[in-house]
């Protein structure tokens, strides 16, 4: 398992380098200008100077190598500095966003909490409700519960979040006034009152995203359970006189979870990618909103860094999913 992990990590390095180059190249080729959102009243000479100040006068490959150095060398040094109070990275130029003129990583760290709270919570809630639904749907296949579950997950899967999101805002924020329509990212939970406010503002975005996640995962769970319910070992368990809860929740569930856990693990990077649409709808302003505004503003360092981190996470969680598979399924032994 260890050599397997090491080997996968080693092969990930060239993969990620290629990915980073491809992302950089694509962004470079994409039309657009980081100064396009500046008003037309800014004269061309001033624009030119602003471009130079952004480093845009450098050729493509120099900017790419600089970014590589900043990402893989300076930013880690900077992290070490801030953790241990050293000064390795002093005077070195970090990756700076063109929109904010601030280090990209500072902004990402700032955005991470609300994304984790809302998108992560939605994922967690989605998984937690998906698993029992999937189990019961499969165990009682074609029952009314299963039919309703199938219908709801079809809705959850096919209706886009910008529709369900706005619908929820109109119903619960505008008409009923139960929840705020705009997420307050500065709210700090210090007491019961602020906790209630935090919960209130999370309810709608979490519900919308959780419905979407749960729809997907409950279908996986159901399919996987159905596969396993017909296996011979289930009959063996029953023939041993095991009760139905033991048969279903021990024997079948453990096997059914193997593919589902990997699907869940593979979905984790999407949390970090944020939920672009849902974040926009509820003004959560997490990583998804950061990415989309950076794309609109042609903030190449930000877009490049975010997409690359996303790529790293995907590669990483693919590996984690594989390792989990190996851990859960004794038949799989890497090496």
């Amino acid at each position, binding site marked *: 398992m260890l050599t397997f992990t090491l080997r996968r990590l080693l092969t990930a390095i060239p993969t990620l380098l290629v990915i980073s180059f491809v992302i950089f190249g694509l962004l470079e080729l994409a039309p657009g200008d980081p100064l396009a959102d500046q008003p037309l009243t800014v004269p061309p000479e001033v624009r030119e100077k602003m471009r130079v100040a952004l480093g845009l006068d450098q050729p493509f490959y120099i900017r790419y190598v600089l970014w590589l150095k900043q990402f893989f060398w300076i930013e880690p040094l900077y992290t070490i500095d801030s953790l241990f109070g050293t000064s390795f990275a002093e005077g070195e130029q970090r990756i700076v966003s063109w929109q904010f003129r601030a280090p990209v990583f500072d902004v990402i760290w700032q955005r991470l909490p609300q994304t984790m709270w809302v998108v992560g919570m939605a994922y967690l809630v989605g998984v937690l409700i998906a698993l029992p639904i999937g189990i019961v749907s499969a165990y009682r296949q074609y029952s009314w519960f299963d039919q309703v579950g199938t219908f709801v997950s079809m809705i959850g899967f096919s209706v886009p979040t910008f529709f369900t999101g706005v619908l929820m805002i109109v119903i619960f924020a505008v008409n009923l006034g139960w929840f705020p329509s705009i997420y307050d990212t500065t709210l700090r939970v210090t007491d019961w009152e602020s906790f209630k406010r935090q919960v209130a503002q999370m309810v709608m975005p979490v519900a919308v995203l959780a419905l979407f996640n749960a729809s997907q995962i409950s279908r996986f769970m159901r399919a996987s359970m159905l596969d396993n319910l*017909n296996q011979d070992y289930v009959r063996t368990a029953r023939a*041993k*006189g*095991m009760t139905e809860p033991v048969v279903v929740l021990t024997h079948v569930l*453990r096997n059914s979870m193997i593919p589902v856990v990997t699907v869940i693990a593979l979905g984790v990077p999407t949390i970090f990618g944020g939920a672009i649409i849902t974040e926009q709808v509820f003004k959560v302003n997490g990583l998804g909103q950061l990415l989309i505004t950076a794309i609109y503003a042609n903030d190449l360092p930000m877009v490049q860094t975010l997409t690359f981190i996303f790529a790293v996470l995907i590669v990483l969680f693919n590996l984690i999913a594989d390792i989990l598979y190996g851990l859960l399924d*004794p038949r799989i032994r890497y090496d």
Partner: protein
Amino acid sequence: MPDGATSVLDVRDLKTVFRTRSGEVHAVNSVSFHLRPGELLGVVGESGSGKSVTMMSLLGLLPSPPAEVREGQVMFEGKNLLRCTEDHLRSVRGARIGFVFQDPMTSLNPVFTVGFQLREPLMKHMGLSKSAAQKRAAELLDLVGIPDARRRLGDFPHQFSGGMRQRVMIAIALACDPKVLIADEPTTALDVTIQAQILELVRDLRQKLGMAIVWITHDLGVIAGIADRVMVMYGGQVAEQAPVKDLFANPQHPYTRALLRTIPHVTGARAEKLNVIEGQPPILYRHPEACPFAARCPQAFDRCLRQNPPRIPVAAAGHDVACFWDFATGAPRDV
């Protein structure tokens, strides 16, 4: 026929139906048989003859839906297993009646250790503590001839060869010292040399433990070597039932005769051409009103198409056949 008092298991008029999209399939039709203490009853028949379904029906191991045990009575230790509570049934399964299934590759749960799967019935039915169960589990593995039993309890099923896995299955079935062991084609998936090992093991265990065994197989060779009594099934019915030597020496049913003729031997004279039973076994969409074998039977006459023959005792003791044709006289029986 011997009365129930001397039988450990007494089955009367069992009738099982599968509900499928194309209608009801009558898989088991009025099957009656009994099992004496310590005896090995061989059950022979082609796939679809109802031999496995009969045994699964006894202890409610068929998935329902689609299966439905419609009629009959299964007397075991003074109780009718078809009318008792689910709890009682579970206390019988795996404790008083053990099961061994055909495919040892799929009949063990791949994600639990062999030790876990062996301990389960011990802890449930015999109330053993985990450590006591572990000790007993090691003894059981030892009993079925698995070397280094204590260490191997921690292994997963895939770490065993096919023959070893079938030994594990037998150990699980024997865990609680059952009165009856039902073995459903336990050697079909194994190689002949491994089959020989298992047959040897079963002979040995019978001597040691003295339980009654129902051995389902399609291999008349295996039956000849191991069974005390044989029941031949066809079309969900018992075609013929006799002590093993009587059956091979003096088969009374045309189907039994055909079956015996079909099989090639490794010893003795080699037939130039294999005998075949033309046609296909029937799928019964209605309760059979005629002899199910009539369509393929060289002896069939008009009565066979009108009436389903009852089981008729023949000359030798304990031999009966469900056929209107008498080979001894070369004429229809007078019943």
